[in-house]
């Protein structure tokens, strides 16, 4: 028992910080219906602002802390609330894309300002040893954090139960329109929720940084992803359970870390614990308890193209001609490897398009499928298999994991599916990548097919595959399966009443999408002679979603624009800072695209139009009336008060 004590202590203290972070996340999710995947970036931003105030502007730490928690946090909250409103009218998939875009943008901004290396963060809480439990020192900082976590949870719970604003926040979750009718502005209530949520996020960011004595944007941003495990235990609803959940997840993680020492095959399992919790939780929690907050918006069908057919055909023809000519064009030259890279990703993007746009589902682990495809290729080539067969096997290897995800996909939807895929992707990266059946130790060797070692010849082969995958997706879209998928996206219920099996359709599309992603990964892997874990960083799964969102609503535009944006253009930009700015631009653009997914920009513009139409009531109309009076009454209807004015009693 004694030997477990240190792990219990570590688990509880780190868990408390997860819990604080999760509380902010669940609070904002509950009240606004937007699950802020960028929550971690807000944590990171808070930590960096604190760092700047304290270590660069030399403010004393209480002042810096107060500024961060009471000024910066609320400011972020107000901005985020407006964003949430922008996302409120769009389907879940786009809410997720929007927050992913925010994550990418925030992270890039921080990298631009502070650089991507980590910095020393001077701890500000007392570091002295408070007491010792069986030889493990517990210092004051850890005690304070733990107490802070409980105090915050307690304060929030009290606030919710007892205060009017807290009650209103719970009410706004139930029925925002009704809240409006009872006299409280839902916008105001939500704004306060976001302010509290963001202040918690900023606070947890500062605390995270302090416990590490270091500030590192990658660590901070993605740390909060572990808070998702805590949020799962709280069923994305209960705030006090967040702290409990955080501690449970923290404990589990440390205990697993201890137990697996003896088993090399289980290395990395502890890192994946929060996501395993997330995944299992989503599988196990009864569906009725996992109701997604907020109105479920159905995706609007993509309107048929306004460009007449012959023009479209001409357009595609020209594109194909240009594509065929690429290796010869002057601006390509040395950059041909990037074009090859982009070609392999065409398959990935159209597969994601199929999943997201056509069937309305979502995947935050598509790069994980690509990784599986790549290792399939590498291992099969290691057994001497010919290239084409190895690629196909790479794709087929993705089907079992796709099935594994499709099972929760059947009972979950929208947000929870997205989180499940995110959890899966991270689990894959942190637990499986390093194993011998995946990338093993170091890199996995891959080969191009015989005779294609020249970039130019390989380009044409890859172009052929890219065209084939686009055609495949187009065929699927027009097939019966495609119609079923569109129905799925429109109204699953209607689909079910027609007797069509929704579940089967979901599973099929996931598998097809996964298979194609695997193929793209295999091709990608074959380009440079080896693949390694870092090639398939799970963050890329988020970035490709953002880029897909800004690449148009049709297969063709997704197939062309997305790979060019993500692979070709950065290759021309040598400056790492420019590339970071480009990435920030992707994030921002994805946010706009998400907000506009259902024509969201129409609303404020319409309101503007309405308001300006009111101007007719002003001096213009008065002038008009005077003219009429001068000309005599016209038979234009007078402002009416009904057919008869009833006599009052």
């Amino acid at each position: 028992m004694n030997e477990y004590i240190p792990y219990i202590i570590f688990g509880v203290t780190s868990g408390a910080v997860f819990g604080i972070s999760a509380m902010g996340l669940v609070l904002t999710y509950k009240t606004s219906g937007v699950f802020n995947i960028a929550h971690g970036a807000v944590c990171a931003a808070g930590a960096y602002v604190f760092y700047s105030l304290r270590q660069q502007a030399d403010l004393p730490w209480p002042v810096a802390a107060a500024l961060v928690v009471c000024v910066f946090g609320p400011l972020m909250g107000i901005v985020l609330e407006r964003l949430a409103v922008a996302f409120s009218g769009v389907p879940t998939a786009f809410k997720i894309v929007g927050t992913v875009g925010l994550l990418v943008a925030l992270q890039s901004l921080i990298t631009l300002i502070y650089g991507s290396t980590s910095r020393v963060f001077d701890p500000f809480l007392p570091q002295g040893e408070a007491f010792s439990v069986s030889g493990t020192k517990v210092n004051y900082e850890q005690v304070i954090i733990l107490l802070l976590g409980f105090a915050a949870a307690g304060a929030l719970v009290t606030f919710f139960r007892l205060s009017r604003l807290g009650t209103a926040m719970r009410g706004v979750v139930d029925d925002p329109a009704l809240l409006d009718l009872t006299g409280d502005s839902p916008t105001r209530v939500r704004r306060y929720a976001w302010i509290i949520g963001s202040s918690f996020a900023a606070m947890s960011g500062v605390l995270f940084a302090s416990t590490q004595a270091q500030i590192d944007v990658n660590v901070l941003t993605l740390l909060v992803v572990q808070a998702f495990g805590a949020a799962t235990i709280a069923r994305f609803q209960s705030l006090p359970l967040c702290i409990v959940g955080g501690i449970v997840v923290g404990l589990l993680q440390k205990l697993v870390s201890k137990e697996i020492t003896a088993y090399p095959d289980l290395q990395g399992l502890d890192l994946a614990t929060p996501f395993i919790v997330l995944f299992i939780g989503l599988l196990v929690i009864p569906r009725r308890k996992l109701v997604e907050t907020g109105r479920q918006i159905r995706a609007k069908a993509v309107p048929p193209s306004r460009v007449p057919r012959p023009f479209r055909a001409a357009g595609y023809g020209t594109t194909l001609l240009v594509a065929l000519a690429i290796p010869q064009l002057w601006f390509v030259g040395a950059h041909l490897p990037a074009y090859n890279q982009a070609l392999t990703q065409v398959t990935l993007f159209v597969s994601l398009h199929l999943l997201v746009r056509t069937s309305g589902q979502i995947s935050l682990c598509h790069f994980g499928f690509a990784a599986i495809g790549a290792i399939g290729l590498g291992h099969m080539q290691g057994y001497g298999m010919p290239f084409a067969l190895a690629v196909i096997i790479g794709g087929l290897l993705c089907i079992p994991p796709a099935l594994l995800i499709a099972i929760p996909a059947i009972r979950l939807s929208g947000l929870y599916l997205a989180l499940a895929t995110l959890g899966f992707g991270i689990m894959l990266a942190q637990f499986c990548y390093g194993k011998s059946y995946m990338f093993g130790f170091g890199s996995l060797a891959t080969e191009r097919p015989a005779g294609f070692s020249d970039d130019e010849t390989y380009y044409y082969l890859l172009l052929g595959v890219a065209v084939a995958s686009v055609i495949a997706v187009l065929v699927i879209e027009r097939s019966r399966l495609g119609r079923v998928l569109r129905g799925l996206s429109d109204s699953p219920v209607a689909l079910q009443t027609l007797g069509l099996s929704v579940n089967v359709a979901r599973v099929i599309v996931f598998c097809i999408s996964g298979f194609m992603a695997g193929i793209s990964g295999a091709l990608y892997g074959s380009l440079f002679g080896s693949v390694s874990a870092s090639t398939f960083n799970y963050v890329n799964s988020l970035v490709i979603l953002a880029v897909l969102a800004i690449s148009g609503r049709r297969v063709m535009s997704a197939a062309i624009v997305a790979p060019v944006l993500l692979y070709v253009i950065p290759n021309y930009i040598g400056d790492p800072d420019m590339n970071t700015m480009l990435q920030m631009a992707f994030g921002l653009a994805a946010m706009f695209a998400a907000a506009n997914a259902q024509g969201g920009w129409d609303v404020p513009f319409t309101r503007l139009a309405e308001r300006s139409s009111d101007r007719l009531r002003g001096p213009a109309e008065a002038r008009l009336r005077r003219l009429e009076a001068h000309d005599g009454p016209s038979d234009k209807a007078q402002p009416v008060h009904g057919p008869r004015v009833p006599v009052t009693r």
Partner: protein
Amino acid sequence: MSNTIRSRQMLAVAAVVGVLVAGCGTRVADDRIISAEGGAAGVAVPAGATSTGETVVAATTESGPAVAALTPQGAAAQGTAATNSAPEAAASAGGQSAAAKGSTPQVASGPNAPCTTKLAPIVIGQTLVSSGVVGAALGNLRLGLNIWAQAVNARGGVQCHPVQVYSMDDGSDPARVQSNMNELVNNKGAVAILAAGDPIPDTALQSSAERLKVPVIGGDLNSVTWTKSPYLFPQGGGAFASYAGGIKEAGEAFKGRRAGLMYCVEANICSAIAGNWDQIAQWGGLAQGAAKAVSITATDYTAECQVMKNDGVDTLLTAVDGSAVSRIVRSCAALGYRPAIVTPALAINPQVAADPNAQKNTLWLGTSVIPFNSTDTPAGKEFNQDAARYAPGTALDQSTVMGWVSGKLFAAAMGKVHTDTRTQTVTSATVLKGLGLIKNETLNGAAPPLTFTAGKPTPPTNCYYIVSVSEGGFRAPKGGRMSCF
């Protein structure tokens, strides 16, 4: 007095970046290379912009007010035939080449004969990751190479050819590595690639070197491809020898008995170490302890440290990035556990070395070439002098000297074929020929004895040097002395 011209695009880029970053002045501009005696002129870098896509260190004339002349991009002289043409390309807007001081005509023979005339410039390319987590440590390969280039140009160039260095960032993206190589060799006319920093996209580097038939001389040496290709020429000892060497030295210093390993799951270079843990531990001469996978994004490593502590590990090899090393040290210290920490020199840049936490533990860095802060060998002295002259005040680290040694190796190879280089156009083939003649070359003590065979990959040289980090920063406990397995 001297400044660098970039194309308009790069200026615009730099301006935008500069505007953005200006006022947020926390970035350290690491391209503060200043040239020549008496000259405060420098390779000007737009305010705030760091790690720009390409830097050009242009040719200079002979000793005298050495001036880095200007070379517009793309106008790189391709070793044109004229042997005594002044670097025409160097005479461009804004800068001026200092007039050659009256050179004393002497009968020249042998590689070290003084130069009578200035020959055509040789173009050198470099591709490396200079940003992000890995770039934080490797970025100084560029600095080291630039220091060498300026020094060698001040002395008349390599075999009387001034060198022009084009350095490109590839962000660890294999596609970019390849397009950089294409650009450098096909468009800029580079005859050799020096000080390549691509531990992760290593096969991309290898395959493009082989396809373009250009030698890659020196680099970070962290991946096994350095011993697998006839086109890659390591400028120092092998990576595993460095790690094992670090363990050995740490063990000797602290009477260690048992070595453990923490390796990151995120990068192949970390897990490659795990794959060879048996061998490394054996060379290190300590009992082999636990190996644990960690994530470089973890908050703390107390649980992992506890595992090591329970296992009796007193010497810990941490295959993680610099910031994670810092956190590991701190987490272990919270347990009252202070093992000796051995880590790849790759991970430790001046900023990490300045972390008081790391210093308190003493980090041991096995390395492939001479410690940058040693001055007990001719090479060590020369490096520090060059650095003081051409990059005064810039913090140095092991990557810096590795870049510098790459240049030295190139010069040595060129010296081997000095008759060709002084009379004919220098091409990649010339350089390869020269490299093939290198036998047991220690570059004045900068490296273990290096031997290359034309047309064959180079087997690993299992020798190492040792650098440590403790209170006060970097130390060289054994100076410039090399040890071998």
